[in-house]
């Protein structure tokens, strides 16, 4: 797990170190994109500082609601999960390098490690609980996160009801902490329990809670006339498997290789024949990964008993079958 600002500053540092002539334009937004200027039919990007840039190839790396994709007229389709992701920065009570995820009936909740005992929380849930989780105090929020990884769905629903009925923060926090204590004693006494739990959340960073709608969006193509899409611009999906960044990195690697081949053979890097080679290699792979993640969401999002039993059986089986587990990790973690 890495924060965007660290990723960006790392990229900037490597640009400054490299001998390549790369211009970075800061504090400028894209105002509009045109398909030609004069007689030259190359995309033209107009920036907020009135600069216009025209290039053989425009790469859209501008996220899920990509402006470049809209300009290129590439259609998208997919589903809204009717859920939101709530992100927050947490301070844990001990150092941690492991990611944890629990599938609740309301949606998966995950803790992803940052260095220095910090962590990133992604809690997927419906609009009602989202509003509630965003409105409570930082202290109660931290207690609810601890509860979400340990207590039963019924208990979590009970806390929601308490907050909704207008109970003061203090008594609710006490109630949560008491039940967590009971849980800790129970699990300590039952030797059979081998549930691995994340470290306790000591505090939630003030004003760090942000939410975004969860959706899956597929594109008709990753390329069009002098346009190539990479990353979320070309595929939006549920964050539950954390595959969005991995797929984006694979897109970039593949596009760079394709363009390098074209340059070495003296080709125009913006023509369809070149870009189609990139699309051919990435399109189906991305679609397959989006499909897999969507299936995981459906399988883990259901309450139906028989599916839940199958799911537990499969996960436990996977856990004890170390070759399959390693193979899966290798596929998912690039």
């Amino acid at each position, binding site marked *: 797990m890495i924060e965007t600002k660290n990723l960006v500053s790392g990229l900037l540092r490597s640009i400054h170190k490299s001998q390549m002539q790369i211009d970075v334009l800061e504090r400028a937004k894209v105002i509009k994109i045109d398909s030609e200027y004069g007689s030259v039919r190359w995309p033209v990007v107009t920036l907020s500082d*009135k600069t216009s840039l025209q290039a053989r190839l425009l790469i859209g790396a501008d996220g899920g609601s990509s402006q470049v994709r809209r300009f290129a007229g590439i259609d998208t389709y997919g589903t809204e999960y009717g859920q939101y992701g709530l992100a927050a920065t947490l301070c844990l009570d001990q150092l941690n390098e492991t990611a944890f995820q629990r599938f609740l009936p309301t949606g998966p909740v995950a803790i992803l490690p940052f260095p220095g005992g910090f962590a990133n929380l992604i809690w997927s849930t419906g609009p009602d609980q989202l509003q509630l989780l965003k409105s409570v105090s930082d202290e109660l929020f931290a207690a609810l996160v601890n509860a979400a990884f340990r207590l039963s769905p019924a208990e979590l629903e009970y806390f929601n009801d308490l907050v909704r009925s207008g109970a003061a923060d203090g008594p609710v926090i006490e109630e949560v902490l008491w039940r967590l204590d009971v849980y800790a004693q129970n699990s300590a006494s039952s030797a059979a329990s081998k549930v691995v739990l994340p470290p306790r959340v000591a505090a939630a960073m003030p004003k760090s809670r942000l939410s975004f709608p969860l959706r899956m969006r597929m594109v008709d193509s990753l390329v069009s006339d002098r346009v190539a899409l990479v990353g979320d611009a070309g595929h939006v999906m549920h964050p539950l498997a954390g595959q969005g960044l991995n797929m984006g990195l694979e897109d970039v690697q593949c596009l760079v290789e394709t363009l390098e081949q074209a340059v070495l*053979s*003296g080709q125009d890097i913006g023509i369809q024949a070149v870009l189609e080679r990139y699309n051919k290699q990435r399109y189906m792979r991305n679609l397959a990964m989006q499909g897999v993640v969507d299936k995981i969401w459906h399988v883990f999002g259901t309450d139906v008993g028989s599916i839940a039993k199958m799911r537990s059986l499969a996960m436990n089986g996977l856990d004890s079958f170390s070759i399959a587990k390693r193979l899966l990790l290798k596929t998912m973690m690039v």
Partner: protein
Amino acid sequence: MLRQLATRTGPRSSQHLRRAFFSQQPLNAPDLSTETSPSVNQDELDKFRHISASWWDAQGPFKYLHTMNHARTRYIRDRLMDLGILTRNQQEERPLAIDVGCGGGLATEALGRLGLSALGIDAAQENVSAARAHLSTADPLLAPHVHYRRMTSEQAVAENLGPFSCVTSLEVIEHVEHPTDFVRSLVDLAAPGAPIFLSTMNRSAVAWLVDILVPEYILGSVPKGTHRLETFVPPDELRDILRAAGAETIDVRGLVLDPLANRCHVVDRHWGPFSNVGVQANYILCAVKNK
């Protein structure tokens, strides 16, 4: 304010060089009449006149020429790097290249993209016009580094053009009237130590099969009568012609087209104990003019 972003792989022409190059041959140098030039075979020329509109149609009659051009260009780039004419870093001056029999400019534009300053010449006005039209609309950043003129290589020699750091004539020699004189004019255009690239087809049963029978009579991907077996030149014959003209052949490789994957492979001439297996049909040759 409009900025056109260049890919920074190739060097830019320095102002100095451009002046030097074009003081000898101004941008508006007139196209020449080529009918009486000794290397011109009117029948051969007419074949290309009629399809000159299709040069840049990647699905048209030149589909596989596009594919082959990518492989040829990579080969040329590798040899230019070996010979130190192109370097990995940006160069102050673009080396001069001439592409003789440029057709629609497929190879000429590619040479420009590799970082050379390329002049494409062709005997047919239709080809030169098609090449110019494509250049002006397709790539304004490349346009300053690529030029076309209607003329033959003999006329270029007579005008004292050059000397060029790279001379190419790809898939042309099988269409000219006097191959020996034609090759001599190519060598005359090259600077001492500069490479001359020639690609053509071997005079063999395999070449007849893959370059005439299949494309012209079975698949119909190339117009009937485009090629005649007797005009194909075996690599050893071409090596002797080049040697007589003052250039030593340093490398010969086969060009093998895979029409199903639409890819073209550069293969070695000899495969273990089987000599000349790689150059049974299409091949590309690199010769260096004696110093």
